[in-house]
């Protein structure tokens, strides 16, 4: 009984840690840390407008993509 509790606790805590590790690896792989200054700098300008811009950018991309593929 005792030992199964220990095994479970080690298992659960390691599993939780592993999730964090995987999240970190995912971020590294996707270039989250490529620009060391960006995170600190862009915080200054992080507002509603920036959020809108990001959405607009996606929309624009989709719109232009359609246009690009239009049969001519």
């Amino acid at each position, binding site marked *: 009984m*005792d*030992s199964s509790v*220990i*095994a479970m606790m*080690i*298992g659960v805590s*390691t599993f939780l*840690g*592993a999730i964090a*590790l995987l999240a*970190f*690896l995912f971020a*590294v*792989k996707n270039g989250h*840390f*490529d*620009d*060391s*200054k*960006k995170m600190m*700098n*862009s915080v*200054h*300008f992080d507002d509603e407008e920036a959020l809108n*811009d990001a959405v607009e*950018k996606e929309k*624009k*991309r989709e719109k*232009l*993509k359609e*246009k*690009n*593929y239009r049969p001519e």
Partner: protein
Amino acid sequence: MIENIKCDHCHLEFGKDVMIKDDEHYFCCGGCQGVFHLLSENGLDSFYDKAGSTKLSRPVEEFEDSITFDTPSFYDKFVSKDKDGFSEVSLIIEGIHCSACVWLNEKALGQMDGVIEAYINHTNNKAKITWSDSNVKLSQIIDMIRAIGYDAFPYDPSIQEVRADKARKDYYMRLAVAVFGSMNIMWIAVAQYAGYFTGITQEIKTILNTAEWILSTPVLFYSGWNFFKGSYYGIKNHIVNMDILVATGATLTYIYSIYITLNNSGEAYFDSVSMIITFVLIGKFLETLSKKSAADTLDVMSKNIPSEISVIENENIVLKNVNDVEIGDTIMLRLGERAVIDGILLEGESNFDESSLSGESEPILKKVGDKIVSGTTSIDGAIRYSATKDFTHSTLSNIVSLLESAIAKKPRIEKIANRLSEHFSLAILLASFATFLVWFFGGSGFEVSFMIAISVIVIACPCALALATPVASLVGFSLSLKKGILFKESAMLESMAQAEVIVFDKTGTLTNGKPSVIKHEQYENIDKKLIYSLTSSSTHPISNGVSEYLKDESNELLALNNLEQVRGRGIKASFNKDRLLGGNALFLKEHGIIVDDSGEGSHFFVAFKNTLVAKFTLKDELKDDALNSVERIKKFGLLTIILSGDREESVKEVASALGIKEYHYGLSPEQKSEFVQKLQQSKKVVMAGDGINDILALANADIAIAMGSGSDIAIEVSDVVLLNNSLVTLADSFAIARRTYSLIKQNLAISLLYNAITIPLAMMGYIIPLIAAISMSFSSLLVVGNSLRIKWKY
């Protein structure tokens, strides 16, 4: 007194009277005014709130035509297509000072129709722009960047850079896994060691062992993958390297520990497995962290060589790819442009800055019939010249190709730790094997003999050895950075400490590289503000020198009329209808004023109302503390030599002032590099230089040191950059390098001493797991602690 106010765009301060008034705003120039209005029209004026009081550079008003960006040859070289069929280009944006600048560029470009994404890296100002060719042209995008006050150059994000980035990311990920695994194993190990002394049931022990087993598996096989790869290549080339020791040690320990775990008896060593891998990986990571990428060098080089130039065909100016220009073509060179093809001047005249090739700090006037050498820049005039060579045979292109080969085969001073580890690894593996044989045939069972043999490898874990060099180098590296010395690769500190000869360039390295006033003679009374206003209207080095000299006492600008620059002569202007002249003796003679221009240095005469009022004598002077610093460097036992492209007299003067016995003058860039190469055959050579004329020699030298104010290419080619251009810093860099090197040697001695004590104990079978773990960490801590001593003296 006129109050100084800030320009509303660039925030630089000027006298109120010279500013352009526009409603309630003030601007220093039309460029700033233009940008300000453009931003407010496009709703981007919140830029000024974001930028705060950051001083921006004044927008450049004249640019090369952006149409070159739309040519097929440009597309071939720089533009790629992404998966959706959009075009992508990588640019270096110039003029970015703060995060608000990045915001403005991203925002302004993002608002353009057809631009899908503009991403700018905050750290290196490199931009990646994605756009749709059917909606917008690249030239329009470039025009927008220029319109808001910045400039952009294309660069080729070469495979090399991509590869370097990928390698670094790979290290991050492997290191993250290793650190995660080791840290978790360590807290489990705490329970195990506690159990070792106070008693623990075998059941719990097996659970702990199993947890460690699971955690150490990714550490060994994922994080430690490079060591397996390294061992494979080592075996293939018949070299016993450190990778083999790490890989065999870790793997054997791992297998043994699995056996213990399954067998339910004995002590498992999973903690040692992950610790060995993690520590050695950290050491390797520290080394790669500060490695410079050759990729950046090539970027700056291609930025300096325009891919297209203006050629005159049938009285029309056409853009031609430099490779298509033929001998006999008439080339047009505009003001401020750099010639990329050799030729002979046909029309016009201009002063040429040849400092990049000859080291001559004063501009040279070229007239019809004079030779134009590629790599030189026209300072004050537009000319037409006829090509006498094609691009591949021109001087500049020759230098570039020589440079590329020099970078490729640059000698590397072998690192002391590498030499050591080879013998070390082999010795440990043999000792471990011998231990096993002795114990096994001495009557102990296989299990005991194997365990003792393993403990030899574990205790000899090269953690301290692996950390000895990188940690000391890194401490030296950060210390030198504080002093304004940028080592591009921290391992260079080690190489620099072993240097035997230092070769100096003269202009810009030992001297200031620009003429400064050494004598000022005043003949008549004149308001000095007048002279200052006159000289600051020109960008000629001589008038710059005079303005610099006068700046302290009279830095106000008076309004001059009819300003006119006379090429190769001087500046003409009028003030309250009186004529003001400033220039060389020839210029004043042409206006009927006879002056005496004998004596050393260059002269700048000023005449007002047709009488001579002042004479300035300018010379390229030695840097402050040059003598002291050269003395200090000599004390380190280095041989000092000067190599210069300049005239004999000026080189000789500098050499004797500094007490440098060996000097060579009148050398071309190729001759300089030949000299360095010849010297290298017997000695390790450090080269300190700053100009394009030095880059070949710099690229060939064992260690290249560039002045921070030097040309971009020289900085890129070099291993060390002196950010404050000071020779004192140069001497400091030698001192720090030497101190670091001696500490590296101490560190290696510590780790070897540690092994000399513990390995015999392990061979005799006295090492228990706890002692092994503690002594391993202790030796690593000792090495790190010792490395920090570099800072004590400074």
